[in-house]
């Protein structure tokens, strides 16, 4: 190397490899397990922290490091911030643009991240939204049990 480099690409081998396993299995965690049960039931939970503030989704412990107390959040939900994804990281256009929002229920201090099923040209900050759950038999207690949020 250094002064005796070889630049001819013919001499350089490219070696395909990977760093993959067959799959990862992620457990839902302490609050996550309760959230999972609620989602299957069509409800969304948050956590109340020692200062009385409610955060969504519940994450077992609070930003003040104390344990959070589970509470149900009911909304109404509003679009707090949003973006529209038109292409992927490689610069390929998506078939259909995706609206992604930070969606905050009035009874919490922050919002969750989720998909907004709406025409990109019609979304605006403050827009009232409602969660649309998948049919009960398709729910598995995961975040995608909420199929998306749509204009209320």
């Amino acid at each position, binding site marked *: 190397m250094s002064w005796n480099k070889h630049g001819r690409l013919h001499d350089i081998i490219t*070696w395909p*490899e990977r*760093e993959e*396993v*067959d*799959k*990862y*299995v*992620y*457990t*839902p*965690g*302490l609050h*996550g*397990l309760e959230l999972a049960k609620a989602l299957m039931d069509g409800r969304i939970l948050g956590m109340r922290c020692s200062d009385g503030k409610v955060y969504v989704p519940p*994450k*077992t*412990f609070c*930003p*003040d*490091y104390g344990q959070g107390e589970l509470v149900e959040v009911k909304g109404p939900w509003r679009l707090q911030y949003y973006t529209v994804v038109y292409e992927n990281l490689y610069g390929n256009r998506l078939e259909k643009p995706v609206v992604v929002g930070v969606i905050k229920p009035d009874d919490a201090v922050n919002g969750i991240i989720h998909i907004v099923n709406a025409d990109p040209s019609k979304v605006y900050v403050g827009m009232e939204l409602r969660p649309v759950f998948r049919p009960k038999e398709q729910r598995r207690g995961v975040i995608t049990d909420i199929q998306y949020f749509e204009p209320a």
Partner: protein
Amino acid sequence: MGMVTNLFVKDRVAIVGAGITTFMRRALETSRELAWEAARMALDQAGLTLKDVDCVVIGSAPDTFDGVHLKGEYLADGSGAIRKPMTRVFVGGGTGVFVPVSAWWHVASGLCKTVLAVGEEKMSPAHPHPQYVFRYIWDPIIHRPLEPNLIWIFAMEMRRYMAKCGAKKEDIALVSVKNKRNALDNPAAQVAANITVDDVLKSEVLVWPVQELDVSPVTDGAAALVITSENVARQVTDSPVWIEGVGFTLDNQHWENRELAFPRYLNYAARMAYRMAGIERPWKEIDVAEPYDPFDYKELHHIEGLMLARPCEAWKLLKEGYFNRDGELPTSPSGGLLGVGNPIAAAGVMKVAELFWQLRYEAGKRQVKRPVHRAVANAWGDLMQAGTVIVLGN
């Protein structure tokens, strides 16, 4: 080496609290929750809250166990890095002991007064088996085509140790017997047991000479320490445990070009730590040790690297009971990785936590018989490369 001793350190660095989760094969908790549980316990023990913490150091081994890229960032909030300076340090399996080592300079530099030092590993997410992750520790071009299993490299080292030192499998199995027995008194333990040498020799042969009971298990868990300046330590406790020496060394990646019977990477790191601590005869001056024991022969290997026994002689002393909890120089009184479990980075932190409790005479049934003043722990990592050492005193 041009290394200077810590001329500028006027304020000593202390450990004032430790916390640990249960070590288990599968945890319900997410990785960040495990970190939170251990760190909360460490803060509670120290009588401190997160508000008192200035900086956070996180240790965790490959991201491909937990299945999260940029794992330090993922563990940040659980480890207390919520609007705080945080870095993650990484020397493979050596990480656990390296976390308090680097916390030392966070404090000794004067940048941070109170540091939360957290080790976490959740190995259970990786499928088909966490061992498969280790395929990716090998050189992608000249090693991976051989489809190596992790245990190969350990077996090769163990074989070398046996060949060079004349140790037999039954001599080495005694480490596993001792550590799993010690672990019976550890509430965190995953695989504590009263077993015999025969049980080890009859367990499933994985990669000869390594059998199932020669190896520590796959584990989920976390452990944490609270590390402070002398001033803070004096305010929160009457019995701080001082960090008296730190050492670390990384050998070359080409382990296939080196003798494996003696760990020179550890020996260099140990000399660095002992020099800083002013220790000239570690075999006399160290009262209790937690040598890194992911495999039983590794404890012997590391006892020798730490100069607690002469090269090739640790196995002989072991047979005499020298390293038992009531022996001359107790090693792995916690039960070690072989007995407590091996959530990689958390396991190293656990070893330091154990010495913290030993030096405060708080280890309960695990307390070693002899009086303790100074202790040493080490961890090892990478491709037989990384040595990390910490010397503690009370």
